């Protein structure tokens, strides 16, 4: 029995075991409290109705006029994302100035708090709130994207500004340039490539977000999807979903390709 000597297994801390037990308890509690209707999900009835539902999708609607509508929806989605990101870029820079401590510590804390709040409320929730002020349609979606992205970009921009060595700006200031001029001609050109890469990355995210914002009535492809689904026009809904998938895949592909080109050959900037 004892001929094969094994080294003892590594000791496991009590805290780790407690933590894992806690996680397990969380998972169990989640499943028990949700009363998921497994029966309805996997019963014969459910399978039949799900199949019926899915078979309603085929074939996707491909009539010319409908495809033109989808193209308009895609254009609307892209415009929403581009405008929202553009507004957020400008507001982000404007808020990054106080958030990087250029107007004192109190302003820095205050603006950072505001940015955190803007950031932690998702685009879709902003869209629902902004529908009241801006009405149904892509404008509310654009504003929602702008507000959320301002929070994200403002924070990133402020961090970039804080990490920037201040030599160039100091030189201009010592030689009599005004603070704003010093910022625009010394600090901004140095961090602009970084700001652009953050902004492009968020734009990519926002295209994906803009595609679904319409589900609450804020324009773009999502609004078409919601409309056709609620009328049970499954074939049209299928076309919209496929268009959404194609658009997202295309954007993913382009950004992957661009990023690989830019990182593979940094001198190509």
């Amino acid at each position: 029995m004892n001929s094969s000597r094994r080294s003892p297994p590594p000791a496991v801390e009590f805290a780790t075991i407690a933590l894992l037990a806690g996680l397990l308890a969380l998972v169990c509690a989640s499943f028990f409290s949700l009363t998921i209707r497994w029966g309805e999900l996997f019963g014969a009835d459910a399978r039949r109705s799900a199949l019926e539902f899915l078979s309603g999708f085929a074939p996707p609607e491909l009539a010319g006029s409908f495809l033109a509508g989808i193209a308009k929806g895609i254009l609307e989605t892209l415009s929403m994302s581009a405008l929202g990101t553009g507004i957020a870029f400008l507001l982000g820079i404007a808020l990054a100035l106080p958030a990087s401590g250029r107007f004192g510590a109190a302003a820095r804390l205050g603006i950072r708090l505001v940015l955190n709040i803007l950031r932690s409320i998702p685009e879709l929730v902003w869209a629902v709130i902004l529908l009241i002020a801006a009405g149904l349609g892509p404008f509310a979606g654009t504003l929602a994207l702008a507000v959320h992205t301002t929070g994200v970009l403002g924070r990133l921009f402020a961090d970039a500004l804080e990490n920037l060595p201040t030599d160039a700006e100091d030189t201009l200031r010592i030689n009599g340039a005004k603070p704003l001029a010093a910022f625009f001609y010394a600090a901004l050109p140095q961090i602009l490539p970084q700001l652009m890469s953050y902004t492009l990355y968020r734009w990519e995210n926002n295209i994906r977000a803009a595609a679904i914002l319409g589900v609450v009535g804020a324009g773009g492809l999502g609004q078409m999807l919601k409309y056709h689904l609620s009328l049970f026009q499954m074939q049209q809904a299928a076309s919209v979903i496929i268009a959404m998938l194609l658009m997202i895949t295309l954007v993913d592909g382009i950004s992957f390709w661009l990023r690989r080109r830019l990182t593979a050959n940094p001198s190509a900037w």
Partner: protein
Amino acid sequence: MNKMPAAVFSRHPDPAWRGRVTAMVIATALLWPMLVAGEFKPWILFDAKSLAATGRFLAAFFPPAHSGEFLWLMLAATWQTVAIATAGLTLALLGAIPLTLLATASLSVSQLESGRMRLAGAVVRQTARWLLVLLRSVPELVWALLFVRIVGLGPTAGVLAIALTYSGMLGKVYAEILESSESHATESLLRNGGGRLAALFYGAWPAAASELVSYTTFRWECAIRGSVIMGFVGAGGLGQRMDESMKMMAGDEVSTMLIIFVLLVACADLVSTFLRRRLG
């Protein structure tokens, strides 16, 4: 400033102004069609009727709703949101782990032996990858919309939507992490006749465990945010309550829910940072 010698400086203080103005003109020309397509009409915001509606709604924000009964309701809704995220992520793990095993190239025996995969292995691997791509390309909100149609309103749709989307995301990233981590131990095990499962558990998993765990907790955090959002299409939790209060224009309830939501996200952030430090 005004007395610069003309020979050194051009008359305009900004030497690059021509380029800047041209860029601005081109940008405006590109922007115009977008403004039209996006129905960008900021003056709507300052329309008297819309200002009045917004004013009424925002005025109700303070004080936030805080009756005991309402707070209990909120507590239940918040728990439901967390539970949807947790249950969904657990199901996603059940789907993602087998798919990861299929998709990870560094666990391929035939590739190790001959430098290339057997045809059958390559086909299975590629199919698994396409499945993962399909699962994660459809946004979770769209899955939720479809499931609400199939299983009806309530948390079941949210759990299923998270399970499908996140199994795609987790599977893809797990495979990437396993392929990019230190492969020496895995390779030795496979070369010396260890099974693929053994190679995973004793080679690949220990080498990549901390990265896998931290990505999973990060996704849990995202799932919480996602489950709130899916509530807006009827998938239960805090989002569904927010949608109802929004439709009744009950500003005080909405403001309480926004506060709860911000706190919830902050807490999830803290917990996931703690878990990452502890288990990573």
